[in-house]
């Protein structure tokens, strides 16, 4: 190597040997005799070369335009259905109900009924409303909401059995429901059914809000004359109380009301809670497992053919259609492990989705671990850290931003999955809030899927509103994760 280095200065006597950085000598032809194009043909070709470049650039900007148009069309489609005029009719107006409560229950004649919202009334007041307007059906409500015995035994069984778990006066324990009077039924309803469910009951059973017709946002904006004609026709025809109102299907009641057979009052409460439960357990299950597997593969396992086969197959698993995970979840978590998961429960759904996103989590975590510079490890080992101490105190914190990015990707995938949960047997009509990992479940995508498959426009509008909620949920999850990632980054950087 010493002979190479002594030649760093150019040697004028041997110009052919001048290399790297040495000034070239005039009479040497650098192309070795091949003629390069002259200036004129160079310029002609240059025009062509530039044109080819700009054609490609135009093609690329066109692809971007197509993508943006597609996205806008999607957004328009969703928003169009989620807002617009509806023609509704109440059997009894809410103000009338409120007025009844104010005068007959509270003995308050000074308050203007229009200023009190139905949803703020107390449980016993709502029960009184039900008694006032639907007295013959009180027993039906008790049966639907509170009975724990089969429907055909309900009227014969003593309430000690039929209403086990509900509160009622002890002296009636051995009587049947038919032995009690309306006042007692009202008391049982008011004491046992949650206020929000009673609100829903009053709205369907008493107020009877119905949606006669719906219009999309576009129709509402462009064709008001036609909409008004429809209203007039309805009022003059069979629905004298019909009234037109501009409705945002996405509203607070929509978020807090459970599923219902009446689209006017149906909401996504159960699905939203279900989604939150499922996501929390899914991430709680797949995050430690994914990071753990990645750590093992990346930090502990030897780099031999076996680990390479495993790594490759984990990558492949990330591409397996989700329905297959659903079938796997059905046979393993729902059927084989029923003793643990109690069947079609939130837990089964979470474990299935957890398995579904596990490959993505592992691959991304591995990527993040691989990106940790060797200097971090060396520094730690050099101070006498064990492998585990190095991983725990240096490598993992440095890889955390990348791992969190992988988690975001995984969660975004899991939150929108429908097929595996359908295979698993998600409930399509559920009005009871999930209360824990063993509850039966439904989630937003299932709810959306269910609504979109119904024929009438009202359900389509509900589905659009639910889609907006799902998207907002997704975006805020991502935002939260990005925020966490940035915080980690900032901790790592000066």
């Amino acid at each position, binding site marked *: 190597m010493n002979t190479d280095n002594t030649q760093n200065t150019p040697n004028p006597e041997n110009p052919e040997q001048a290399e790297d950085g040495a000034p070239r000598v005039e009479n040497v032809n650098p192309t070795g005799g091949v003629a390069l194009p002259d200036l004129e043909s160079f310029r002609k070709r240059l025009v062509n070369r530039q044109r080819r470049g700009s054609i490609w650039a135009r093609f690329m900007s066109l692809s971007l335009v197509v993508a943006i148009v597609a996205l806008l069309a999607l957004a328009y489609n969703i928003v169009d259905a989620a807002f617009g005029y509806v023609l509704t009719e109440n059997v009894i107006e809410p103000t009338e109900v409120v007025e009844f409560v104010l005068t007959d229950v509270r003995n308050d004649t000074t308050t203007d009924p229009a200023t009190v919202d139905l949803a703020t009334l107390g449980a016993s007041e709502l029960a009184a409303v039900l008694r006032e307007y639907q007295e013959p059906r009180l027993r039906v409500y008790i049966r639907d909401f509170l009975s724990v015995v089969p429907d055909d035994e309900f009227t014969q069984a003593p309430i000690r059995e039929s209403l086990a778990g509900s509160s009622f006066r002890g002296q009636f324990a051995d009587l049947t429901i038919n032995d009690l009077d309306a006042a007692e039924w009202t008391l049982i309803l008011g004491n046992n059914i949650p206020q929000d469910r009673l609100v829903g009951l009053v709205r369907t059973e008493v107020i009877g809000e119905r949606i006669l017709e719906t219009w999309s946002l576009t129709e509402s904006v462009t064709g008001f004359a036609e909409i008004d004609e429809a209203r007039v026709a309805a009022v003059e025809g069979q629905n004298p109380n019909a009234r037109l109102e501009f409705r945002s299907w996405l509203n607070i009641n929509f978020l807090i009301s459970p599923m219902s057979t009446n689209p006017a009052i149906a909401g996504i409460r159960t699905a939203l809670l279900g989604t939150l439960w499922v996501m929390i357990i899914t991430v709680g299950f797949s995050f430690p497992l994914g990071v753990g597997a990645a750590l093992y593969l990346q930090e502990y396992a030897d780099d031999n053919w076996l680990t390479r086969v495993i790594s490759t197959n984990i990558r492949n698993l990330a591409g397996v259609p989700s329905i297959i995970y659903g079938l796997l979840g059905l046979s393993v978590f729902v059927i084989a492990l029923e003793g643990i998961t109690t069947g079609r429960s939130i837990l089964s759904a979470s474990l299935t989705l957890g398995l579904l996103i596990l490959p993505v989590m592992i691959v991304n975590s591995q990527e993040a671990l691989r990106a940790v510079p060797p200097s971090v490890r*060396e520094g730690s080992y*050099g*101070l*006498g850290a064990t492998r585990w101490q190095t991983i725990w105190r240096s490598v993992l914190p440095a890889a955390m931003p990348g791992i969190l990015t992988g988690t975001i990707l995984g969660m975004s995938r899991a939150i929108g999955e429908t097929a595996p949960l359908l295979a698993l047997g998600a409930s399509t009509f559920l009005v009871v809030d999930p209360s824990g990992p063993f509850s039966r479940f439904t989630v937003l995508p299932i709810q959306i899927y269910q609504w979109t498959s119904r024929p009438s426009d009202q359900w389509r509008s509900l589905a659009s509103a639910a889609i907006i909620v799902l998207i907002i949920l997704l975006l805020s999850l991502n935002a939260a994760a990005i925020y966490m990632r940035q915080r980690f980054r900032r901790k*790592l950087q000066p």
Partner: protein
Amino acid sequence: MTQNGAYAIELKDVSVYYGDNLAVDKVNLKIQNQKITAFIGPSGCGKSTVLRALNRMNDLISSARVEGEVIFREQNLYGPNIDPVEVRRRIGMVFQKPNPFPKSIFDNVAYGPRLLGIRNRHDLSDIVESSLKGAYLWDEVRQDLKKSGLALSGGQQQRLCIARTIAVEPEIILMDEPASALDPISTQAIEELMKDLVQNQKFTIIIVTHNMQQAQRVSDYTAFYSIRKAEETEGKERRWGVLVEFEPTRQLFESPKSEETERYIGGEFG
């Protein structure tokens, strides 16, 4: 820091392989206690490789294999029953590129003591303060120990890495070109620090350097490595490093025994 044997560390026929390739052949060296020993030689001659063999950092490279014996406190570091973690805790290392952890200055220095199980905040503060003082960094950072170690200048980062190393009180500190990424003033600070560590704080230092002036300025002993080549059958070349000469620094630079050393320090190749 105790002087059990006559030498801080002793290499007997140490050869290092990367896979099937010999990187350094049969190095024999006896490093003096409480002195600075410099490793010099052309690029690729295996200085870093030998240095990393001294505290088993080569274990981190799966293809690396060490033959021969490294005797430290009468024990072969490559013998059975030796835990590399203990070796690295007693023989610390400072790297070419300053590599503070992405943590605060305090946490950087406390990293080692915490590994050893010291949890008491007060004790940790004491260690951090004395280590930073030992590394000539205390006056510059005492105000903001919470600042990220990466927010310091390159020279300060390197001194932070030295502080972090001396915080676990190793008996030998290995430094692989610790000043090559630094400006002349920071370099000078590091050189002063090394002398102080040896003279006043009783450490033994082994330093790899490309800078022969630096070797002359700081070291007591110098080991010169060079490259040997051999033609393989299919016209391929095999290269490996050997130790050419190991002498007190002044002697090596003023009257080298080997002609190769003379040409190298004369700047003829490198």
